[in-house]
């Protein structure tokens, strides 16, 4: 059974249709990349899945239950975690407290005490390599550290589905490789389905995703295993423009 199903989802902002009749299935434990140029509706799609926006049409089904209009704070305890394109740390709180919030209100919500949450936080902070910074205010971290902290915070939620929004953008290629390796390990250990959204870091897509969904103007352009998707002429066209000789009118 699919972990998350989007059924013909449409979201409009006034006259602009940001996501248009979009359907998608995400399976437990899979790694999927959603790619697409700027403005193709990726972030809107994430916001629909995490409950920031409700779609005008269509349904969102998580583990067999319709969550189309479920408030976002009720989705996290069911197993939906996400990171943001521009990291959104709780700036004045320490890294440790930030990550503990994830543990406290994620799927473990109600079963862990504050102290246990802090212990869980320490474990994930260690894993993303931020242990020396754990008592720093999250707002004082470097941009890359903030991204790592967000990943730790999302992982501490023990999600079944993790949505990562441009988590690897702005990182050094070496760090990207390390991050991809780390995500693969975590994914195997904890059986999380990870959806990563990338604009143009093909290195990460190739290294990480089993399947690629290409979005273009709010709709699905293709949904194929990675190798095929990258060779798809439509994808190449969307990303790189027309091959020489065929140019625009």
């Amino acid at each position: 059974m699919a972990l998350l199903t989007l059924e013909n989802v449409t979201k409009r902002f006034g006259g602009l249709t940001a996501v248009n009749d979009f359907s998608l299935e995400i399976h437990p434990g899979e790694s999927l990349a959603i790619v697409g140029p700027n403005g193709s509706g990726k972030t809107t799609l994430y916001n629909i899945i995490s409950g920031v926006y409700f779609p005008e049409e269509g349904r969102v089904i998580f583990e067999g239950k319709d969550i189309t209009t479920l408030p976002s704070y009720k989705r996290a305890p069911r197993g939906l975690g996400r990171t943001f394109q521009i990291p959104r740390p709780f700036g004045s709180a320490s890294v440790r407290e930030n990550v503990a919030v994830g543990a406290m209100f994620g799927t473990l919500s109600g079963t862990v005490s504050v102290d246990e949450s802090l212990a869980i936080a320490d474990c994930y902070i260690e894993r993303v390599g931020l242990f020396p910074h754990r008592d720093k205010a999250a707002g004082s971290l470097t941009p890359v550290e903030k991204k790592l902290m967000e990943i730790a915070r999302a992982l501490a939620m023990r999600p079944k589905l993790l949505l990562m929004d441009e988590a690897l953008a702005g990182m050094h290629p070496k760090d990207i490789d390390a991050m991809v390796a780390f995500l693969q390990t975590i994914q195997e250990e904890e059986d999380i389905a990870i959806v990563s959204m990338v604009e143009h870091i093909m290195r990460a897509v190739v290294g990480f995703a089993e399947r690629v969904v290409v979005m273009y103007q709010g709709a699905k352009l293709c949904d194929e295993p990675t190798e095929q998707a990258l060779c798809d002429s439509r994808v190449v066209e969307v990303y790189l423009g027309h091959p020489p000789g065929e140019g625009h009118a």
Partner: protein
Amino acid sequence: MRAKIVKYYPLIPVYAAYLILFLIGKNVPGMWQLMAMLAFYCAIGQAFNIFLGMTGYVDFGYVAFMGVGTYGMALSIVHLYQVEWLGVGIIVIGLILAVVMASLLSIAVGAVALRLRGAYFAIATIGVNEGFRYFIEGAKIWGGSEGIIFSGQLTQAFGRETASVLSTLWADIIIFFIAGIAAFITIYYMRGKIGYALTALREDEDAAKVMGINVTKYKIIAFITSASLAGSIGAMAWALKLTYVFPSEVFEIHYTIECIIIVLLGGAGTLLGPVVGGLIYGLSKYWLTVVLPGFQLLIFAPIIIIIIVAFPEGVIGVLKRRVRGSVLEKFII
């Protein structure tokens, strides 16, 4: 067990400050009124901090909760003073009524205004105290604009001696207790799940929601807690102490502004902040009243400007960063 107690260490400087105020007031002749006033400022700062400091929402109508609390106590005394067997129970009932009325009002206000954010929330709440005042005056309930004067009833219920001790001594002592309770609730919240939720929503409400935090629930809990403490402070410091209540006096917005100054001056969202803020503010106001009578009201504006420009984190906010890593860290938050 020990780890649990360590978490409450920051209460030590707070309670020490209150104890010192109390001892000075009791032992130095002529100081009781001043010390009681300082305790009052610390108490309202501490109560308001639970909402303003922890959620980052500014409630300009905050004084309304103190106002209805004052009425709670007044109504209890006026209606029950002939019931002899109640004894001091009248005061207890008054206090409970004050808390209940303030929390009911906070639920009503919160249900509407807490849907708004930031400046919109602040603007929506500005009308609450004025609205409530005009409602009492216009509808002529609870004595309308003439208020309720109940010194007579208080004397009849308890006799001249006891009534005088109640309003000149016990009203103040209970303020010390309320301040202490407010401090305890503050740290209890800070150390609990709610504290993490409030910090998260103060920093980034949308991100907090996506992280699974029911922001509305936690905001309302903080709002009701803060309001009911305000109600109890009104019941003691205004009703029982002054033995009268006028709508034009208890719904004055400048008390809200005093609360805001105290919290920001000491450090919003810190435990020790409102105590420090209350002491600095109370003392400077008192000192100005003595040296430049009439000018004390002028200090509001410069204080606010100086805090916001020079040290937006407040005294304790700055100090907290300084002591990071030292022994004092455990005591100052």
